[in-house]
């Protein structure tokens, strides 16, 4: 186990390096440059050249890359042009806000999705099974932004139950925060919920039809115990691996959701950074997303092994 963790941590190094160089090159290739954004459209080209020199953008790209990487080894991820704050600090302050909605959304999705999947596996071909099928299909195919806009229209504009945007403030009580979280979480949870439902359903169907389940039933074990203690536990591994993938997707998917709901997390920050060509911030944020993804998949592998020691990775 320890060896596995070490091995994976070592694998992290090339991953980070690749992500670093790819984002570095891509940010420089896309047209538009931070100096011209900072100076504004009305600015004089001489002023822009001056700013470029100040920002070190007049140097060649390999030279800029070397400076950037050596700064990172010193623990300096650069300063965001937009927010005028060190990138590292900025990302640290934003991650919790994004995790707030992604984790909540994912937990809701996990609970409801597996429940729905289990029930529909046990009642195969019942109405609830068909509901599950249609729901999974819609959940997987409806884009997040559409669900976002529609849910705002329904719950905020038409019914007036929930606020349309923002994060609220804890000073106004817990409900203020919760009510602002509800719609973004709903939005983020639909797609993974559908995936969980599908995966649970098929995994449960496989398990439930096994001989040992029949044997357990024959021994007169309570049905509830058979399902939840024996069948569900054995159906878990595929769900766990889907969970890992979904966490990554959810975290990146938050970019769209946060923009729709003006949620002040990583997502709104990344889109602002891209629109303003805030190189240091784009690189820092994408690096963070990559590290989060790698870390999540490592954690998932460990959980996998703990649940089922037979599995060797």
């Amino acid at each position: 186990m320890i060896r596995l963790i070490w091995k994976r941590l070592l694998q992290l190094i090339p991953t980070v390096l690749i992500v670093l160089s790819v984002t570095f090159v891509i940010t420089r290739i896309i047209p538009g440059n931070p100096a011209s954004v900072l100076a504004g459209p009305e600015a004089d080209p001489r002023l822009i050249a001056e700013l470029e020199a100040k920002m070190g953008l007049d140097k060649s790209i390999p030279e800029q890359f070397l400076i950037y990487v050596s700064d990172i080894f010193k623990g300096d991820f650069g300063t965001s042009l937009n927010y005028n704050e060190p990138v590292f600090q900025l990302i640290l302050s934003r991650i919790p806000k994004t995790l707030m909605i992604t984790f909540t959304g994912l937990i809701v999705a996990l609970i409801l999705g597996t429940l729905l999947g289990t029930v529909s596996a046990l009642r195969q071909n019942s109405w609830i099974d068909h509901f599950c099928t249609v729901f999974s299909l819609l959940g997987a195919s409806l884009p997040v932004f559409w669900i976002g806009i529609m849910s705002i229209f329904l719950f905020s504009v038409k019914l007036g139950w929930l606020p349309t945007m923002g994060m609220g403030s804890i000073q106004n009580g817990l409900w203020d925060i919760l009510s602002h979280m509800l719609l973004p979480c709903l939005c983020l949870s639909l797609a993974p919920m559908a995936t969980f439902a599908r995966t649970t359903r098929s995994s449960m169907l496989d398990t439930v039809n096994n001989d040992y389940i029949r044997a357990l039933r024959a021994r007169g074990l309570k049905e509830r115990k058979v399902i939840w203690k024996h069948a569900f536990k054995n159906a878990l591994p595929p769900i766990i691996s889907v969970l890992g993938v979904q966490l990554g997707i959810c975290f990146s998917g938050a970019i769209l959701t946060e923009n729709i709901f003006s949620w002040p997390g990583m997502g709104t920050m990344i889109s602002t950074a891209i629109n303003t060509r805030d190189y240091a911030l784009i690189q820092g944020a994408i690096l963070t997303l990559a590290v989060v993804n790698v870390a999540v998949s490592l954690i998932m592998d460990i959980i996998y092994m703990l649940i089922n020691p037979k599995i060797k990775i």
Partner: protein
Amino acid sequence: MKKMLSVVLALAMMLSLMAGCTPSTPAQVDADPTQPPAAGAVNEQEVVGSAAEIKNEAVDGGTLTLSMDKAPTSLDPLKISGYNAFVLTTQMGDPLVAHDASGSGEYLPSLATKWEVSKDGLQWVFQLRDDVHFQKGTYQDGRLMTAEDVAYSINRNKKHVNNTLSFVDEVKATGENEVTFYLNRPTATLLYELTLAYYMIVPKEEVEGWGDDFGMHFCSTGPFMLESHEIDQQTVLVRNENYWGERPHLDKVIFKVIQDGDQRVNALLTGEIDIALSLPTDSLERVVNSENLDLISLNKVQMNSIAFSLENGPLTDPKVREALILATDRQELVDGAFAAGTAAVTKLPLCSNSWLYSEELEGKVPDFDPEKAKAVLAESAYPDGFDITLSYASSVERDRVGVILQQQWKKYLNVNVILDGTETATYNDLVHTGNGELYMGGLTASTSDPHFSLGYAFDSAKAHASYNPGPYINEKADELIYKALATTDHSERAAIYGELLDLVMADYPGIWFADQFTFWGVRKGVHMEDFDNWFLICNGFNYNAWKEN
């Protein structure tokens, strides 16, 4: 059979889940089928009137919430860039002289009580109020503002890149309550420049105390002071209890960041915000149809133009440029691209709400004439047409303009237009580097003074900036532009601008085709009067917004 039934049932269930969202939309549209899209049916007079008309006595208290599409990164007058930064900083400071939102072109006293200009136009002396205190900050406790502070603030900005006072050599405190501006050439637009947020007066202690962070802890003399500035969330301003002018009615003003235009309308409909700035034109109908909202047409115009590159490609041939102007049907562009009532046809490189704009001047620009266009192109180096790229920052309207123009020029001149609609940062970079052929853009005229549209568009000092992307460089034109600035007399200036137009239009520098209006959504019960470009919520003497309880 049973299986079929359950599938149908499940489907029906799913549909009923969605149903909540859909039926209301068509119902809303059906409610008034006679209504043309968007603002067409809006009676501007009536709308503006209802907001300005004061139904009952102004009451103190309450919070006014406005939306902005993105938060400025700095509120320091030195570093402000973009509309939102201007608007925010303006609410917290006072200019030396104030603009008159009624559009008279006159300037009103604010921090300066009166001013005088020397005969040669090179010295402007301003008398200042003696009762102005700074807002309480971290490094000073709300001390009296002095003439030295005014000189400091303006000189400070002069050293910076944002500086628009290049014609001012120095500002000096020349008396206890008197400052003098020393100009290097007579300039009629000094007073206009002084109304801008760049020239708000700031206390030296705060600027030096906070250093680079002053932009997050802005402090000035205005009716509202900064409480918090959270980028991506909101900026909160609170009443300055020690304000020199009339006490502001509102306790608080909050600017919330909402990036998405339709979301701004949603928040307005639910009452989360009181005023939505700059509505997307396609959502105006939702505001018009709501009984809780007023649609306000602002005294602010976004010009739309296509500047020809005078450096690259076929456009270096003046015959080609002339042909393209002649082959452009402006009316069709405006009718096809902009929602009804949200834009008007123009022909001049001059903002249509300017005092100078007239039909007579429009005569200096060739009319739409496809036959003549063909004949002119036949005389050029490209008689059989050519390929050309039209670059622009993509928006709903500009995408449509591009497509219509593509058809027009193909039909009349056999010119193939390649559309290159990108996002703003890419387009701006293209303008700055001068690598385009046709630049579709246009400036937002923040004042009716012709210098800021006509003057900027052909000034060689603005070459490769968004004002003059061509760039159009002509010494004679530069001379006229500065000559027009040297006098404040409208008829004298009009004559010079007429000469300038004759000069530049003979070179066919571009096509000016539409002025777009700006709309705000305002909730009923909000009483605000200044709907100018840099609007003021409160300014101490003639504007003081309030909200019904």
